Every structure is written in structure tokens, then in C-alpha cells.
């Protein structure tokens, strides 16, 4: 008997989908034969808006591009401006930036724990990790004044110095999170249901990963050691001691293990950055923002976010507004063509599971 092909629309209103996007599936039984991603439900035209705002005003909107992890955007924007303009950044600011980026990475991984386990039906994990994420957001609130959007890393340094007692609080929080990670292992990684769901699902092989330009944890989960922090060190990552894991496998399970390992590395990096942080200035003053012009030129900078390489291409025509800022997030590579390719032959139940493991984030696909 021939099986009938049915069209199934997953999203945009679906609790399993990551954000606001839609995957149109052609299914036979419960096997996906063809998938098509539809994005654009969150398009705000950031790149157009930045053409209308001056350099400082543009800085305030870039963090809205990626919601779970806004800091790599600020970092990229600032570094692109600094590269075109040749502006120096004080050493202390560099350490503060590294610490902020790593804190953001931890927060994103904690949210990922919730998403990945939630799509497998383990809701307790999400309650724990999203609850613990609040402690990182508290640190951000102390440091920057905002829980989600910080607008903290700006051209020339950071916006504020560390508040009094921040170092102790941050170290205490790191100790707490590190302790909790063992609990997470028991709940998620030792759970045989999760293991059975994750092993052998959503496999990206090495050749395909290179061919499709996979970045971040999915690439390292294919056994390729590639990380912007090591390949093209920015800020002070070359002075810090850390390890980037790479494992063979390429399935959801391997990607989960990579993240499990990396969150510990980030905790280590926060401690190192706080420890080695020198004194001195934290900010190199910018001129009057209304008259601030940047010489003509272009730059491409990239940052390793929790989901992979985040790139900004910026062009200045010598005026007081950016000529063009083009954002490339990791989900731009993973979430459209790779996802379509990867979902073929998988079960319907695994679709949101795979999407979570790739870290698909629609706001940065369409901006």
C-alpha cells in the first residue's frame, strides 16, 4: 500500500517551535519527507533603521537583534566601530567585556537546558535551569541595570565600572551554578529517556558540516575544533586559559555534551577574567554623539556566541550614521537551509528537539 503524503504546518503558533517561525512539513506516517522553513514573522528591518540613526543611537538598538543572548551583538557593533575608527579600548574594559560575554553564554546555555529538555517532555529540568538563570540575570542587573537588554558594551569600552561587591557576588553565583550543574547531570544526562531520544537523532556528518558552513557547538559536535575565541582571538581571550571541546558523533546527544562541557569552561573563564582584571580606566570617551563621525571604511568582525559565530559587516561613508550594518547570526546558517536538509527522514516528534539542539533563533535570521 502506498503511503499518502500529508502537509503539516508546525508553527508559527506552536509551543514546541523556538520563537516565532514556521516549518512546513510533508509527512508520510510520522516521517518527514520534506521540510521548508518560513521565516519573517519577526522582521523589523534593523538594518534600515540603523541607516536612520546616528552611531550611538544605533548602538542602543543592536542588542534587540538576538533576544536570548544580546551581548555578542553589542560586542560586534562596538568592535566594528573601533576597527574602522581605530579607537583604543582600555585593558580593564576588555576583561569586563570578556566576563560579560561569558556570563551571557552561561545564561543562554541555562535557557537551552530548558528548551532542549522541554521538547523531550522533561519539564522539571526547565524549571530548575530557568530558575537558576535568574541569578545570572541578577548579576547583569547589578552591572548594567537591565535584566535582558544591557546596552553595556559600547564603542570605546563599557558603560559602567563594576559596582561595589560585584566580584564576590559573581564568584558566589559561579560556585552555586557549578554545584547545580551536577544536579542537572543527574536529571538530564543520566536520564535514559533523554539518552534514547537524543542518540542518533539529527546527525550532521563532518563533510556536510563543512559543506553547509555549520558553526558553533553543532560544528564542534562533528569533531571539528573551531571556535572564534581560539581561531581569531578577540579582546583578551588569548591571555586566558581555556579549552574548547570537540567530539565525534554529530547527533543531538553530542551537541548536548559539548554544551555541558562548555558551560563549565565559561564559569572558569568568568573566574579568570575577574581574577586577572587590572585596574584603571574602563571607558575611552567618545565625542558628542550628535557630531560623532567615523571615517569611511568597512569592517567584518565576528564573535563566538553560545550558538556559534556571530558576524557583523559594517560600512561607514564618513558620516554620522552607519551606511550599512549587515548582521549574520549563527541561526542564519542553521535555521534555514541546513534545518530543511536535516529534518528529512526524521520523526515529527523530533523536529522541535532538533531545532533546539541547533539553537535556532528566528529574530536573528530576519532581524
Amino acid at each position: 500500500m502506498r503511503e499518502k503524503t500529508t502537509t503539516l504546518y508546525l508553527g508559527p503558533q506552536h509551543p514546541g517551535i523556538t520563537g516565532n517561525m514556521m516549518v512546513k512539513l510533508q509527512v508520510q506516517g510520522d516521517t518527514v519527507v520534506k521540510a521548508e522553513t518560513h521565516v519573517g514573522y519577526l522582521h523589523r528591518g534593523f538594518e534600515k533603521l540603523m541607516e536612520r540613526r546616528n552611531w550611538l543611537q544605533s548602538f542602543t538598538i543592536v542588542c534587540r537583534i538576538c533576544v536570548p543572548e544580546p551581548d555578542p551583538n553589542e560586542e560586534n557593533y562596538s568592535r566594528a566601530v573601533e576597527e574602522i575608527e581605530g579607537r583604543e579600548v582600555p585593558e580593564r574594559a576588555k576583561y569586563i567585556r570578556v566576563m560579560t560575554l561569558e556570563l551571557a553564554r552561561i545564561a543562554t546555555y541555562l535557557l537551552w537546558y530548558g528548551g532542549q529538555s522541554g521538547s523531550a517532555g522533561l519539564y522539571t529540568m526547565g524549571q530548575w535551569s530557568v530558575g537558576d538563570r535568574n541569578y545570572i540575570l541578577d548579576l547583569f542587573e547589578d552591572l548594567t541595570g537591565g535584566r535582558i537588554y544591557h546596552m553595556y558594551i559600547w564603542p570605546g569600552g563599557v558603560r559602567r565600572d563594576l559596582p561595589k561587591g560585584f566580584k564576590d557576588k559573581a564568584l558566589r553565583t559561579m560556585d552555586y551554578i557549578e554545584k547545580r550543574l551536577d544536579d542537572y547531570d543527574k536529571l538530564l544526562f543520566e536520564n535514559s529517556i533523554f539518552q534514547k531520544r537524543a542518540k542518533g537523532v539529527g546527525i550532521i556528518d563532518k563533510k556536510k558540516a563543512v559543506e553547509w558552513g555549520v558553526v558553533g557547538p553543532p560544528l564542534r559536535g562533528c569533531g571539528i575544533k573551531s571556535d572564534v575565541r581560539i581561531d581569531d582571538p578577540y579582546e583578551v581571550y588569548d591571555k586566558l586559559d581555556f579549552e574548547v571541546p570537540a567530539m565525534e558523533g554529530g547527533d543531538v546527544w553530542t551537541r548536548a555534551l559539548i554544551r555541558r562541557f562548555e558551560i563549565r569552561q565559561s564559569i572558569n573563564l568568568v573566574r579568570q577574567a575577574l581574577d586577572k582584571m587590572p585596574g584603571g580606566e574602563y571607558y575611552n570617551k567618545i565625542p558628542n554623539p550628535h557630531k560623532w563621525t567615523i571615517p569611511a571604511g568597512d569592517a567584518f568582525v565576528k564573535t563566538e556566541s553560545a550558538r556559534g559565530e556571530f558576524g557583523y559587516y559594517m560600512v561607514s561613508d564618513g558620516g554620522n550614521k552607519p551606511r550599512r550594518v549587515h548582521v549574520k547570526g549563527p541561526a542564519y546558517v542553521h535555521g534555514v537551509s541546513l534545518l530543511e536538509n536535516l529534518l528529512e527522514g526524521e520523526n515529527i516528534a523530533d523536529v522541535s528537539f532538533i531545532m533546539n539542539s541547533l539553537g535556532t533563533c528566528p529574530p536573528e535570521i530576519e532581524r
Partner: protein
Amino acid sequence: MYNDKESQKIVDIIQNYARKHSLFILAYGTGCGAIEIPPTMTSRYDAERFGIRGSATPRQADVLLITGYLATKSLKRVIKVYEQMQDPKYVIGFGSCTINGGMYWDSYNTINVLDKYLPVDVYINGCMPRPEAVIAGFVKLQKLIQQGKADGWDIYKKNIDEYKANQKKIITNWVMPDFNF
């Protein structure tokens, strides 16, 4: 009938009391505000003590949370979802961008004033609103429900022509039925 507090019958008071303590939010993250919903639902803020919890499908949901800016492509889906929900239903505009466009006021792809397209009962301002603000917004909605003043769904039905005209002004290719009730 619901508009005036004095004219509330005892049945309405009991009904409204029950309604306000079981608000099921539709799990539709229409914008970036959806990032503050998981913290609101989990241990520290624990919105479930107010009877607020998620619902997967529009037919079972009471509250439609518009979490931030609405792109025109999203607006079409939101209208469809809103009309599928059962009466009484409430809309909460979450974040500054639902009020007046916020920082996307000059964006070609996002609507600016949400209550021209959907009847909004409560606005929560801020970019982004903290979980405390979200809970405060819900408490405000509960008060309005008890008083019988959260009647946006009724207003939507009465002024359906005006709302439809506004919606069709933006959605040029209207391929769905006019009403999804």
C-alpha cells in the same frame, strides 16, 4: 451587561471570580518579550500561584499575550489565532512597542498601535518589562475581569467593521475567511 459594575448579577460575580483565577495564556511568542515568560512561569516568580499558566492551543486559551512588536506577517496569524479563541478572551499588550511602536516606530514592517487592530485590555510598558511588571499586569487584568470591565472581546464584535478595515489596510492579500469565529 458586563460594562457596569452596579448591574452585575450575582451569577456574573461568581463567573468572573472563577474566570480571573484561571487565566490560560496562549503559548505564542509573537516577539522578543517571550524571553521573559519562562522566568515568570518558573520558581522565582511562579505566576501559577495567580492561576496563570500556558495553553498550547488557541481554543483552550483565555489570554493572548502580544509580546512586543508585531510584524505585518505575524499580524495576519495573530488575528486568525485571536478569532479562534473562545469568548471571553483578553489581550495583553506586552512591551512599549505594542503601545506606540517603541524603538521600531519608523520600521516599515511593524505595526505601531496595537489597539487599532485588536482590542487590548491591559498594556504592560517597558523594554523589556520585568517579570514583576508582567505579574502586575495580570493582576490588573484580574481586577478588570472581576469588575466586568475587561470586555475587549465584546468591543471587537461590536466594532468589527472598523477593526477589519484597519486590518485589511495592512494585510493586502487577505486569503483567509473574513471571520474565523
